[in-house]
């Protein structure tokens, strides 16, 4: 487990999502990265039901996420809130809690793609899909040997520049709060959640515009 940075790569002008992903993969392979299986991150949204929200709280959203990198775990996050790491059985628990949390099935969003290994770096290029349609591209870069985010951020950034060029992101907000403490898998999931939320909002605006 190392330090991870998750970012979105915009779809190139005049290209489809698929083509952009292929371009990125080709760049990585030219760099010398090796394919190392596939990965998948998915996220389901739960509304807090009326029973809870009636007590003066605003209806918070809860996200339940899975990551193929942590096959036995299930992550439950609130926006800006705590992150719970649980067994994979957590899903069945959520079914039991139907009365309090309602699954917004239409909001299910996931990112799937190929996993690349390049020396100590792990790169995952995924297509973000919501329902049947591809909505964007996610890139996750992990530097495995290190667990302190600030110690390796520069190295990470430099590496990302090598294949993402101008789309290299700034320092993720999660890193800012971490300072010198140990990076955990939950931080990766928070980044994914933020990315998914961003993509959802991006998509909603143009859709609304067309209508």
């Amino acid at each position, binding site marked *: *487990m190392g330090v991870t940075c998750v970012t979105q790569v915009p779809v190139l002008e005049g290209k489809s999502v698929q083509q952009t992903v292929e371009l990125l993969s080709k760049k990585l392979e030219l760099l010398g990265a090796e394919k190392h299986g596939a990965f998948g991150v998915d996220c389901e949204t739960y509304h807090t039901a009326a029973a809870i929200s009636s007590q003066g709280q605003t209806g918070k959203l809860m996200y339940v996420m899975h990551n193929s*990198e*942590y*096959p*036995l*775990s*299930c*992550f439950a996050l609130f926006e800006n809130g705590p992150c719970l*790491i*649980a*067994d*994979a*059985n957590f899903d069945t628990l959520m079914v039991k809690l139907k009365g309090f949390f309602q699954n917004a099935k239409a909001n299910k969003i996931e990112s799937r793609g190929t996993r690349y290994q390049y020396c100590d770096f792990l790169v995952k290029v995924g297509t973000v899909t919501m329902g049947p349609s591809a909505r964007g591209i996610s890139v996750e870069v992990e530097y495995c040997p290190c667990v302190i985010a600030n110690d390796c951020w520069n190295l990470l950034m430099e590496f990302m520049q090598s294949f993402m060029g101008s789309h290299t992101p700034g320092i993720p907000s999660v890193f800012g709060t971490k300072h010198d403490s140990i990076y*955990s*898998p*939950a931080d990766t999931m928070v980044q994914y959640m933020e990315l998914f939320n961003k993509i959802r909002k991006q998509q909603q605006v143009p859709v609304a515009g067309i209508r």
Partner: protein
Amino acid sequence: MAGVPAVRISIESACEKQVQEVGLDGSETYLQPLSMSQNLARLAQRIDFSQGSGSEEDEPGSAGRAWAEPSEAEDEEGLVKFQPSLWPWDSVRNNLRSALTEMCVLYDVLSIVKDKKFMTLDPVVQDPPPPKQDPQFLQLISKKKSLAGAAQILLKGAERLSKSVAENQENKRQRDFNSELLRLRQHWKLRKVGDKILGDLSYRSAGSLFLHHGTFEVIKNTDIDLDKKIPEDYCPLDVQIPSDLEGSAYIKVSIQKQAPDIGDLGTVNLFKRPMPKSKPGTPHWQTKLETAQNVLLCKEIFAQLSREAVQIKSQIPHIVVKNQIISQPFPGLQLSISLCHSSNDKKSQKSASEKQNPEGHLYVLEHNLHQLIRECHKQTLSSVVMPHPASAPFGHKRMRLAGPQAFDKNEISSLQTNEGLLEKIIKQAKHIFLRRRTARTIDSLASRIEDPQIQAHWSNINDVYESSVKVLITSQGYEQICKSIQLQLNIGVEQIRVVHRDGRVITLSHQEQELQDFLLSQMSQHQVHAVQQLAKVMGWHVLSFSNHVGLGPVESIGNASAITVASPNGDYAISVRNGPESGSKVMVQFPRSQCKDLPKGDVLQDNKWNHLRGPFKEVQWNKMEGRNFVYKMELLMAALTPC
């Protein structure tokens, strides 16, 4: 009388009790009346038995006298007692008397009849006999009829009796079958399918994933001939075992030195060990089922092993031929695991007697294989069987934490060590072989080399993959002072780790030669160490000491070691060089003053130079007296030490 006034008469009953005495005041003391038995005893005392008896049969005359006497006695007694009827022998006497009378009469009559003068005896006239012919015939018919009726009744009774006996037996057998079935159910899983009773032989309920159905059928074995004698081992319940599980089977594991011809593979071990002489008749269902289950388990082990042998990639691929798996744990060495299944038919029995291989079984490994497969079963079982914690799969503690602590793929895979059966057994075989070879090496060295001595202390309790032996190198008679070399050999799977007494760790490979060379060099060092220890005891001074001498001829094994010691007064010095190959070389340095043949140099004119040491001379070591090196050295030192 009438004029007389009435006189009151008081009547009181006569006192039944006798008065013993009358007191002065008029009170009477009574005697207690006699009880019946006391009374009888008293009366019996009064009879004179010798008088009356015996005389009665003699003759009438004496008899007459006999009965006259008691009457007199009676008269006397009657006077005294007034209660003759109470005499208990009265009726006896009367009867005897009347009998005597009759006898006398009969005697008289007979005596008269004998003379035939006054009396004759005539036969009494009988009734005429009944008419003969017809009644006899009728009687015969009626007798016959009644006999026939009686016979019929008897026959019917007999028939009913035999029927009930047969029924009883049948019932008994049925009951036996049921009780046997009950006993069967206590040990085996049974279920009823249609009109058959099927049982389960397989280890599936114990966690086996082997595909063989392992079903047996329970048969009612009651249609036995009633007339014949029932054999002793008769059992009303029998089991039908699937044909491929019949006979007996076992897994054979052996290690052979060189690979046999590929042509022999698979057939060599096909038939082993003649079937143990089975008793005539059918074995009991329990033994039958147990052997069948054993066959099934052996088949499962072999199937698992051969599957792994094909899947696992090793440097030298494992060979699976027919019923044999061959693997090469070490070069030039072959581990063969074979499934020996001998069925009951005569063909295999014949060939079994022909092919008897004396090659050793590795029973330990065979046993371990069984244990390993059971462990596998247990593992699969524990993950399936209820009850479970609802939140997580039941298993290793770290596995349970894997979810909540978000272990990634690498960490999870490191938790799951799924080493196969074959890998484990090969590792064990390697270890066993390495252990044996080490023991042999040490033993052969110990028997070949007498000085110094090697002692090996094997630990009794081993791990399947590791065992240890402590090796001591000593000199006979000097065990107390020469304790320098103590080696701990940890024998692993691929290599031997030697831990020296001073903490050095040397890793040797599985090659036999390495260990041998190492031990040889240690032995040679031991001699020099021993000299050092001896010098301390003898009061000699160690001038120089080296385990690894860089000078002199090069040894092919290890290095030579050397020591120089000086006598207490410094006159003499002994220098020893000992190499594993070249052996020992002992030199003695004499004081210059003792050397006559030393050329007088021009430079060393002064007398003081005589105190310098002179040249070395070699000792002809093999001509020295003494049973071993250290003893010889002790003698030499003693000889050079001035008194």
